[in-house]
């Protein structure tokens, strides 16, 4: 017997599981008194250059958020954090959880005018899964062992092992058969906008896809993603009206621009923490790690650097992933407990305090600011911390790759997969840059891999969060808010629980 999941069902299940409540808070749709109009073009300010145009190869969050408008997978994420059918209309999952059968949506066209065929889907998934040349481009898809064409409209994907979270990876872009190997391969997808041009250092321009399968979308004729590397310049250009949407306002910028534009606020998908190198001689002592957790006054940090708009956390899970999140803020309190910190340090054998080096990627002003506040707070507990500011590539090599550091303040950007933030803390994970090594954690994670359903996994994920917090793997701080400036002439901007800028729903108001 096969369990048939139409997307209607998926939608409600995902809604229950994810419960991401996407737009959490403001959305500019409250402008109901004004009418949406078609046409017009918008300039969106972006912070850094894109790292490529190949949807399977790009890795930067700042690139993926743009390509979301051009490419679509078999499924895609909607603003509630639910998966909806895109190139596929529906899918079936076999009882053993290994075989996904996708039925393609009729009439979905690529930007070159060709209809999407089963061959295109097979090619795209095989390319991303590394079945073509042995190099998986999308890591989770590497467990895919075969992609078979059942008939013109049906594709069957077989996985080598069960992973209830694999469905999230089918958001991988569908591209025309063979297009990745073409000379002069233009980025061609099925999304609401088609690619027009890309100029390094300047930006990327996209225009309306007239044949888009979701009728009525998009509203805009053209969107110009313009690279503005400095925040001050961005502010000036917002004031001058050259830029209509800017999704990366700092707290200070938001205050300054509020009177002229709409400032929309929603929780981000970044988990910021003071990460410990658990293999460090000093920090391998759990009492020292706990002492630092106690010493932090996270409410004060958040007030200082995020204007109080952040959500305080104590473990590695987004509070917006409601079905998976467990509030552990009582573990160390949120306002700092200096006495307890000192007591733990004394117990650990450091009654006179300790020295701590915090490595911070200096291009992130937010993390730098956080570090300054943290250093002051730790002082009170007899922890003499100093900041080592490094550039991003040095950070990547020294901290992330070689794990040659003591502690660091940075943030992990989560994707939709619920386990994304937790699976990296398994002791032998390649992504475990904090060298977290807990037998309990590893044991529970072993059960996660056995669990066949997302519901079962959810319970185990809560256990993992608790272990991580209790053993003070790192001092988790906050999930900062995203603050987006949107021109008063625009409506329809939507927040997603993933890092994307969906321009298809944005329109000029009359």
């Amino acid at each position: 017997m096969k369990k048939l999941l139409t997307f209607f069902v998926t939608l409600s299940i995902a809604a229950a599981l994810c419960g991401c409540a996407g737009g959490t808070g403001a959305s500019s749709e409250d402008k109901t008194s004004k009418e949406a109009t078609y046409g017009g073009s918008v300039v969106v300010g972006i912070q850094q250059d894109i790292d490529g145009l190949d949807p399977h190869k790009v890795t930067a969050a700042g690139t993926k958020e743009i390509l979301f408008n051009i490419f679509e997978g078999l499924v895609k994420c909607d603003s509630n954090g639910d998966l909806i059918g895109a190139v596929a209309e529906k899918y079936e999952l076999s009882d053993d959880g290994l075989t996904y059968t996708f039925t393609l949506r009729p009439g979905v066209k690529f930007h070159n005018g060709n209809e999407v065929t089963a061959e295109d889907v097979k090619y795209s998934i095989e390319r991303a899964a590394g079945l073509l040349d042995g190099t998986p481009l999308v890591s989770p898809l590497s467990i895919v062992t075969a992609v078979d064409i059942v008939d013109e409209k049906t594709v069957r994907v077989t996985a080598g092992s069960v992973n209830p979270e694999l469905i999230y990876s089918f958001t991988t872009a569908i591209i025309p058969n063979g297009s990745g190997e073409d000379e002069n391969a233009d980025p061609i997808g099925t999304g609401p906008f088609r690619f027009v041009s890309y100029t390094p250092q300047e930006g990327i321009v996209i225009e309306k896809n007239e044949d888009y399968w979701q009728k009525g979308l998009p509203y805009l004729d053209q969107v110009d993603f313009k690279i503005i590397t400095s925040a001050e310049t961005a502010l000036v250009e917002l004031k001058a009206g050259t830029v209509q949407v800017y999704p990366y306002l700092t707290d200070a910028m938001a205050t300054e621009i509020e009177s002229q534009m709409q400032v929309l606020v929603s929780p981000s998908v970044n988990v910021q923490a003071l990460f410990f190198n658990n293999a460090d001689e000093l920090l391998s002592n759990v009492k020292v790690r706990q002492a630092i957790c106690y010493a932090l006054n996270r409410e004060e940090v958040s007030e200082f650097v995020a204007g109080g708009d952040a959500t305080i956390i104590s473990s590695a899970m987004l509070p917006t992933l409601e079905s998976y999140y467990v509030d552990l803020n009582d573990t160390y309190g949120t306002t700092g407990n200096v006495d307890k910190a000192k007591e733990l340090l004394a117990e650990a054998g450091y009654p006179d305090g300790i020295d701590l080096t915090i490595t911070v990627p200096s291009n992130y002003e937010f993390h730098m600011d956080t570090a300054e506040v943290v250093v002051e707070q730790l002082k009170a507990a007899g922890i003499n911390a100093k900041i080592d500011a490094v550039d991003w590539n040095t950070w990547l090599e020294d901290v992330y790759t070689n794990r040659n550091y003591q502690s660091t303040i940075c943030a992990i950007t989560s994707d939709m997969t619920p386990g994304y933030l937790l699976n990296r803390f398994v002791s032998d994970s390649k992504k475990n840059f904090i060298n977290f090594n807990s037998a309990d954690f590893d044991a529970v994670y072993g059960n996660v891999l056995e669990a066949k359903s997302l519901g079962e996994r959810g319970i185990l994920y809560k256990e993992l969060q608790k272990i991580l917090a209790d053993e003070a793997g790192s001092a988790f701080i906050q999930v900062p808010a995203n603050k987006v400036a949107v021109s008063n002439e625009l409506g329809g901007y939507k927040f997603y629980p993933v890092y994307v800028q969906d321009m298809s729903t944005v329109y000029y108001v009359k």
Partner: protein
Amino acid sequence: MAYIIKKTATLIITLFLVSVLAFLAFQIIPGDVVTSILGTEATPEREEALREELGLDKPPVQRYIKWAGGVLRGDLGVSYRYSKNMNEMMPVSELIGDKLPVTLLLALFAMILTILFAIPIGVLWAGTKNKFLDGALNVLTQTSMAIPAFFLGILVTYLFGIVLKMFTPGSYVSYKKDVGAFVSYMIFPAIAIAIPKIGMTARFLRNSTLTELRSDYVRTAKSKGCEDKTILFKHVLRNAMLPVVTFIGMIIAETVAGSIVVEQVFSLPGIGRLLISSISTRDFPVVEILIMYITMVVIVVYFIVDIIYRELDPRIRVE
């Protein structure tokens, strides 16, 4: 002729040394281009594949020789970071070719403004006996030199863009699309670059003019009954300009090498911005070519300064 051959040889040797040093520097600084491109999520297979694709699996000496050989044949290589489309990387020549005219024109505009304002101000200042004007110019030039370039850029944008609405910040148009709009936008970043340079050059000219005014030949001219103006413009200025030419040469080299900060503030797609972002992403082929270009500009500008010197001062020619 021998002079030109000598200069050309110096140019080639310097370029070679600089390219080796830049290559070495890139071997030493931390940060791996492969992690930089692929981020933290890539599979080891992909990292390996990319390393091979970029030729980074070869030993450094072999890589340098391959790169240098390419440059000698006119092939500047491809960027590690920028792609042309889904499948091809952007050739460095194409990447820089687009940005170079922007920076060169910006430098040209800034230089025209500097010379246009600095020389009259400097001469006027040296010649004035008005205490107030002297004091005012002193304060103004000091201030213009003291303001950090970044702040000055923002100040110019606010004043001319937001307050006076003479231009729209961020509305840069490529010269390929609309020359008029390009020029009228570029004037403002050029002003931001020119202001401190005007201050410096004017001060420099004033000081060297005052020194010259105290020379023996000025006294001789005066005693034979020359008018002050004639002395200033016919005799003194020619001599006073000598050090100023060197100074302007230095300024030109600096501006052409990329007005990094001003390009950032005005969102200009010039090579200054490209250099900074390429260093931070460890895009070696781009950085190496930009460094070579800057070296070349500096050497060529000094060479031109040398020639002008010879024209202005016959003594050097005799030597």
